[in-house]
Each structure stands twice: as C-alpha cells, then as structure tokens.
C-alpha cells in the first residue's frame, strides 16, 4: 500500500523578501526580540507569529504572511531591517503547492536532480532545485507534507508534470 502524494495549489498569501546588506547579528537580534525566534540559517525555515520565514540565499529570506495584514507586516519587518536591509513586497511571485502523502519524496525525485529521499532533508529544511527545467523551492513542513514554491508562470506545467508522474508513481523502485 502506497501513500501516493496529493497536491494542490494553496491560496495566494502575501510574500515578502527581506534582504540584508549588513548587520546580520543585529537584525537577527531585532527579529528575535520582535518574534521570539532567530532568523533561520541556511537551508532552514521556521514558522513564527503567523509568518513562515524561509531562508532564500545568504542574507535574504522569503516570508509568507500566513496570518496578519501584509502592510503591517511589511512595515514591521522594515523597522527590523532598519539601516541594514530592505523589505520588498513580492506577493504573487511564487505559487505555493502543498504536497501531502508519505511518498512526496519519491515524487520529487522525478524529473529533477535533488536528493529528496535523504532522511536529513527533514521538517524545517528548505532547498532550491530544478524539476523539468523549472526552478522550484521546497519547504519541508512535516514528514507527510512539503510546500513547493514555483513561479506562477510555470505552475500549470509543473502541476501537469506531477499529475502525470503521480499517476504511475513507482514507490517500490
């Protein structure tokens, strides 16, 4: 019996980009003071105060506003960034696809080059890779759920590809 992955596009939520050009320690301290958690390090993501904070690249994070108002969150983050960085509204720049089911790891090995089956790629881990020429970013939420972010222009083809693969998913191989 397999636990074939299921997936659906998540409703659009505000997305913000926090990028620092300096003062990482100071900004992280201000972030901790405001939200009670440190900014996640490379390859990590956290959920804090209604925000999913996803490490994007050195000095940059993508922040999905799960609960709360976009403008207020943006203002608060700009305050935290202060003179050390900038915050940009990038809402709509990525479509989030929620994959559920124990075999999502198998699905993500198709058409790609990423070791999704590595047990170390566990909840709280994020990674960017390419699936069938499309840039995708994975955010492991639980062992049975991963969020995939893809540019909306690619979303239709990526979902079609996953639908095609999932139909005959070989989880025994």
């Amino acid at each position, binding site marked *: 019996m397999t636990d074939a992955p299921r997936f659906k596009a998540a409703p*659009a939520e505000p*997305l913000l*980009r926090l*990028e*620092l*050009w*300096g003062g990482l320690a100071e900004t992280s301290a201000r972030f901790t003071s405001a939200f009670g958690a440190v900014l996640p390090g490379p390859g990590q993501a956290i959920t804090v105060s209604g925000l999913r904070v996803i490490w994007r690249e050195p000095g*940059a994070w993508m922040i999905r506003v799960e609960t709360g108002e976009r403008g207020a969150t943006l203002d608060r983050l700009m305050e935290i960034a202060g*003179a050390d*960085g*900038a915050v*940009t*509204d*990038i*809402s*709509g*720049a*990525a479509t989030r696809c929620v994959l559920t089911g124990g075999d999502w790891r198998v699905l993500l*090995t*198709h*058409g*790609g*080059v*990423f*070791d*999704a*089956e*590595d047990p170390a790629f566990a909840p709280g881990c994020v990674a960017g890779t390419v699936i*069938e*020429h*499309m840039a995708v970013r994975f955010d492991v939420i639980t062992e049975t759920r991963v969020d995939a972010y893809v*540019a*909306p*222009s*690619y979303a*239709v*083809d*990526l979902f079609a*590809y996953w639908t*095609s*693969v999932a*139909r*005959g998913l070989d989880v025994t*191989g």
Partner: protein
Amino acid sequence: MTSARLPAGGLINRTRTISFTFDGQRYEGHPGDSLASALLANGVGLVGRSFKYHRPRGVLAAGVEEPSALVGVGVGGRFEPNTRATDLFLYEGLIAQSQNRWPSLAFDVGAVLGLFSRFIPAGFYYKAFLGKPGLWKVYEHFIRHAAGLGKPPVAADPDSFDHRAAFCDVLVVGAGSAGLAAALAASATGARVILAEQDTRLGGGLLRDPAEIDGAPAADWIEGAKATLAARGVRVLTRTTAVGYWDHDLVTLSEKLTEPGQVPAPGEPAQRLWRVRAQRVVLATGAIERPLPFADNDRPGVMLAQAVRTYVARYGVTPGHRAVIAAGNDDAYRTAFALAEAGCEIAAVLDSRPPSDSPIVRAAAERFDVRFQAQAARAIGGAGGLTGVEARTEAGALTLTCDLLAVSGGFSPVAHLHMQAGGTLSWDEATGAFTPDQARQNQSTTGSASGLDDLAEILAEGWAAGGAAAHGLGKPLPKGGPPQAAEAFPGSSNSVAALAPPPGTDLKHTFVDFQNDVTLADVDLAWQEGYRSVEHLKRYTTLGMATDQGKTSNIIGLARLASHEGRPVPEVGLTTFRPPYTPVTLGALAGHATGFHSAPLRRPALYDLHAARDPIWQPVGYWMRPRAYPLAGENLHAASIREARAVRETVGWIDVSTLGKFEIAGPDAAALLERVCATTVGKLAVGRGRYTFMLREDGLVMDDGTVWRIGPDRYLLTSSTGGADRMAHHLAYVRQVLAPQLKVAIANVQEHWAGIAVAGPRAKALVAELTGLAEIPRHMSVARGVIAGTPVLILAASYSGERAFEIYAASQEIAPVWTAIDAAGQALGGHPYGIEALEFLRIEKGHVVVGGEIDGRSTPQDLGLHRMLNPARPFVGAPALQRPAFQSQAGRLQLIGLESEGSIPEGSMLVRHAPGEPEGHVTAASPRVLAQGSVALALLRDGRDRMGETLIAWSPTRGVSAKVRVVEPVFYDPEGARYRD
C-alpha cells in the same frame, strides 16, 4: 543447426505459453525466454543477414554483446530496429522481423554482394570518391539504399519516458556473484545502496553455471541475497543498464520498464533514465567472451561457449545435437559437460593450449575426444545451419561433423564504465585482456570485470569491494565474511590469449567485427594502406563501430594491428570508451521534453483571459504570448494591422507582464544602477523614470528597458522579456562581485508585477476614467492608483510612440484590472493588441529590440544611443568603449531606417545590386500602420553616412527582393509630440 527445447530445466515458466511472431511466422515460447532462446527453442537458427555482405547470421551470444542477431521489433511508433534478440525478453504478442534482407531472410537478393566482396573491401567507399565526380550520380542511389543498419520507425513514439534522480552511498553496477556480494557487504554497514542489473534476473553467471554458495544451491542463495537486500532498503533495479559514467560519480542508468516494442501499462512510462549521484561506485560488470578468428566463423551455429551454457541452463534449450568445442581455456569445458548433460553429443573438444592437467580437463578427457594444440580453421555450412568444422590439430587437418560449434577466445573484462570515468587499463599478455588499473573517480572494479574467473575469489573480492566502498565513507566494516562457494571444478579457467587465426586461414572470410562485416583481411588492408593509428583503423574499416561498439571484436582487431606493427597491444592503443554502453532510446534521453514546445511553457498571469479570445499564440523564449487577436475572418496580418491602427487612432492595450522587472532598494541603489545602466540614473527625481540600456563588459549593448525612482531609496528597473534571466544574473554579478560594498537589495519582481500597457490618443482618458486620478502622470512619470479595486502602479512610458501607460498590479490581482481596461477600452473603440502589432508600432517609432537590432554585436554608437551615455562613465562596459576598434566608426554596422513602396523582406541582406556583396541586413520590417508602403530597421555598414541611398533588400533563399531607400530610423512622430500632453 538443430536447436530444440529441452524437456525440462531452465529458469523459464513452462506452465505458461507466450505467442510471438518472427518474420510473420507465429511461434511460442515461455515467460523468461529471450527472443533468441525462444527462436532457438523453435529450431530457428537463421535470425538475420549481415550489414555489408548479407551473410546469413544466427545467434552468437546470450547477452548485450550480441553482434549478429539483430531484429526490428514492435510496430508503428514503437518499432525499434537493431534490437538484440538476446537482450529482448519475450512478451505476449511480440512482433519481430529480421533485417537487411529482401525479399526474405532465406532468399536474400542482397546476398549476391558476397560474391563481389573482393571489390568492396574496407574503405571502398572512400576510394569511390577518388573517381570522376560524375560517377557519384551513378552509384549514389545504390549506396544510399544499402546504407544504414535497420530502418527507423516512421511514426512518433507514442510512449512516455521518465527521468528520475537518485543518490546513494554505494552504487553497485552488476548483480552477478561479485555485485551481489558487494551489495550485501555495503548494505550490511548501513550504507544507502543501489544495485543495478541489466538483466531481468539477479545472478549473472550463477544463472548459467551450477554452484553452491554458503551451502545452498546458487539459485537459493540469490533469492536469499535478494531478500536480505530488500530488508536493508537497498534499491535493486533490474533490467537497468548503467550506460554512462560521468564526472563527479554521476552514473546514468537506463531502466526498461517495458521490453522494446511492448505497450506499457496505462499511464506508465516505457523506460526511465536514472541520474544516480553516488559517493562510491563498485563496478561488477562482468566479462564478455570473445569469439575465435577462423574462416566463416560467422556461420549460424557458431556460438560463444558460455552463451551455449546459458541457453541450456537458463532457457532449457539446446542449440545443437552434435557439438564441437573450440577454446583456449578451461571454462569452455563446462560447456561440454552442460551439453552432454542435456543429451547433446560432443564430437570433440579442440583446445588450442598444450596438454593441460587441470581437474576439469582431466575429467573431460575421460569423457570426450579432447585434442590439444588444436584449432577450428573453418566452419562449414550455410544459411541452413552448420554441418561441420575443419580443424587443425597436431595430427593434421580433419573435418568434424557437427551442427554446433561452441567457441571461446578468452574473456574481455567489461571496463567501459571504468574508462568512461577516466580510468586506465593494464594489459595481461597471457590472457589477452585489458583489466581496469587506476581509477580517477570514486570507483572500484571487482569480479570478472577485474580479470578474476574463480567463483570463490570473485565472491571474496566483491565482498571486500562493497565493504571498502562503505568503509571509505566512514561506515563500519561489514560483519562476517564473504559468501563461500563450492563448485565441481573450482579455480582459474587458465585462459590463454587466442587472438590469431590458425596458419593458412582464409582471412577474407575470417570475421572480426560481425556487425560491420570487417574481416582480418580488411584489417590487413588498412595496415598496408598506412593506417597505423587504432582510431584511423576504426574509421577506415568500421571495426568496433555500430550498435555493439566492438564488444566482441575490438581486442582481436587490436591484436592483428599490433602484430603487424610488431608492438605489444597496449602500445597500439585503444579507441575511446564513450557512453552509452548499450544503445539508449532517444525517447529516454528526451524524457518529458517532447511535443510542441519540448520545454515547459511560461504562462503569464492573464493567460486564461487571453485564451478565452482564442488568439494566435507566439512562444517568446519559454513564455507564451498572444501574437494577435483575430476577429472572425481575419488572418494574422489583418488582425495585427487593425490592432496597430487602434493604438494609433484610439486606444489599445497589451499584456506586458513578461518584461523583466527588478526592485532595487537601499541607500546605494542609485550607485548600483549607475554601474548596471549606461545612462544617468543618479539625478532621477522621485516619481520619474527614463529609458536606459545596459552594456556587457565588452562594451556591447546587452539589453534595454526603463528605470523608475519609485521611492527615495527604491527603484524599479525593467528589461526585455527574453533578457530577464540574463539581467537577473547580471545584477547579481554586479552586486556580489563588482560592488559588494554597496548597501543595496535586489528583488526580482518579474512575476510579482503583472502589467498591461495602454497606448493611444485615448489612453490618458481611459486611465483617468478607470483610476479617477485628478492628475494623470506625464510622460516618464509614476503614479499610484486603484483600478477595479486593485492597487496599481502606473508608469507613463511609451514603446508604441503614442501616449501610453504601463499599469502594474500584483500578478494574482491583475485579472480584474485587465477586465476593466478591456471593457472601458472597447467602449472607446479600442482593441487589445498582440506582439505582432506591437512590432509594427515599435518599428515605426524606431525603437530597438533585443535579438533584433541589439544582436550582441552592437555598440551604443552603432545604435545611435551614444548621446545618452552617462558622461561620468561609471557603468559596466565603459572601459571597453575606449578600445580603438570602437573609437572609429568606419566600417561598422549602424542602425538605419529603410522605406519602400512595397513590402521589405525581413532578414534579407542589403546589397547595391542583386546578386552582390552584402553590406548589411534588415533586422525588422513592417507595413506602415496608417499609410501605404513599408518601413524597416536595418544594420548597414557606415549606415548613418548613407542617407538617401537606394539599395536592394535581397533574400536569395526566399527568392524575393525589394528596392529600399536609406532613411533615419524613426518613421513616426520623430519629435515625440504624441506622447506628451
């Protein structure tokens, strides 16, 4: 040859019967049969005709090395030529047909070529080209007709092919005894292990030769190993061939989920290409038995000795009733015993070695007629099968009656992957074999592939290789020890090199490369004609080319060349081992990348709204954009002219969401932009924008766009659709490499902002109506507003030459904005327009475009943009503009305009007289939107000094030309009055 199914035995499922056809004749076999074994079981020994001389060919081998038994299999798009009958497993309804014969396999007209073989030796076609050129017209038809091995399918492959990635600590290639032992050892340490086996079954040679391992029959031990590996989570891939070993221990595996020609299960792919990134690779790829060189050694009924055992033991088939064994090793004696056990008469064993005292030889001598220092000299027979063998013995020549000749010329370790990984080989003169030597990547070679031939040693070395691979990654050494083997005749096969034919052999009929009909005489001829390099020998004779890549032939050919050269084999060198190891279907390489676009399509946020209008689509890079929105009865041109006129006369709107867009924020944002953009940015006031362009470091124009100051420390930079990814990289390069000290953040907002350009004399009224703004931004100014409840950013910019606005909203919120503009615009008499109309408009206005006028060779001066350059020259590419080649404008292609009364062929060359020397070319052409005639942009040598000249725009490939006048490259409103209030 009188092959037949044995009454019992084999690893086939005799309780089920499978029907298949070969050349239209219906036969039956059993699950587990290969096509070759099933044909032999049905008494079919003639399987195909050879490529060049159309000689009758049967089955030589039992695996992927088969050079002769090639068939076409399947129908329609699933038809696959050159499929090895030995590597094709039977399925219900299999349809196979022989190749290279007409009208039938038994009576082949092409066989007459064999009579003329002396006139068509190696390289004859090269020599043919030395004759009178006109003769080519005589023999071209015949050569083209004869060329090619098998026929390609004429229909598209209907199946799908999958690509999959896998990672592991240890990849073991080959699941014979060594591979299984390696996988057991590696997995015992807790390592992540993948085991790939090209066969349908695990076991390799254990499926052929009886043995006991750890006290159990080999078959039981294999099943036990399989269960153990499964319990340890080892990924075992059968019917999966490691076809390529690439850099950084990337190994590609080709997995056959269906057999060639077979219809896959619904929704299932036919094949899967794995890309395996391994920390360590253990190559347990076995060895390939070589044939012997003697006259007519390609006759049906001459088979490799191990292959004969395979047919007996694995498939329950005896390939003949009376056999001669010819070999130079102990291993072939096992074939004599196996055949005898199956009821076959052994006429003689011809052993090329001196008398041997090994146990298996002693046992054989007690049972069979064993002759030492004896060799096969000629196979006797024809298409109907083998009837005998001429032998050279110490006692003289003799003829033996037989219908099967089992030969063994020694063994070639399969070192292909080792060599693809950059390894080296060492030569064993005694056995006449290359074995893997130094490894360049993280690979090791074990078992028969490393030159071993004793089962106990193979198991021990395989175990050690697997354990060492895992241990090298920090895993503990595996507990226990290697599996223990017991055989009736253990020990080495004492193989000696048997690479030369018996004295006096008819070399013209002694085949080296069965697939290409290359004989020893051909090799000799090549050497006589001066081909000393093995690479030249290969190309001249075609030795080792074609689908088998010389798996059974290369060493004999090399040895022949070496003997002529008087040098050891290693000194004459080896040809390159290139992937794939065995042929790979092109579909497997393509995976999902097939069909209309062969790549993912990028759909703009407004895609569905466009699709509802059923536009003519245009791929722009990966993007899919509307080219035009034809009304009933309109073609592309009519629709585009109508749309362009709407922009000139009333209002039009177009989706510009695909433009590259970047938000650049921070106190040093202007400083960064002044490095990226070749125009001045620093003095831009908040709320204002300007046209800009960017240079590469070599000073050539890379892209263009606009830059807008949308906040005190925040800018929006736009660039071309096709150049968006390149611009993202360029910005990152400048930010991270050239100016890391700048306090600036860059966000790629290409898909955050979706955009609609509204253009035309009524555009301002439309924007005013929709936004309710009291003050509409003037040209190159910014405003914010709300349309249909959606916050929008309004940039007053014009690409069309009319008063225009680019209206941006977050992409997920853009649909109602489009709908509102569409409704209000139509009420004003306007139309949406596509990129064809946009092209007409921009050409008239003289705006350059990336990929057209900006073609990677143009400087700002060439394009007339030099007056806009930032005089402080802080930008990327500024130093390169000082180069002498760019300082002088003489002889450079410069942007100009062209006018004509008729149409101007786009892409045509500009000449003074046709035909003539090209002096430039037309980059883009358009009809005049509101008048008669055509205009074009072009790049013309010294163009700016040639205003008023008349030239010919000439396209000899299309057979069209037009008389054109050179004019300034702006055809519409040169003062720019129309986009200013």
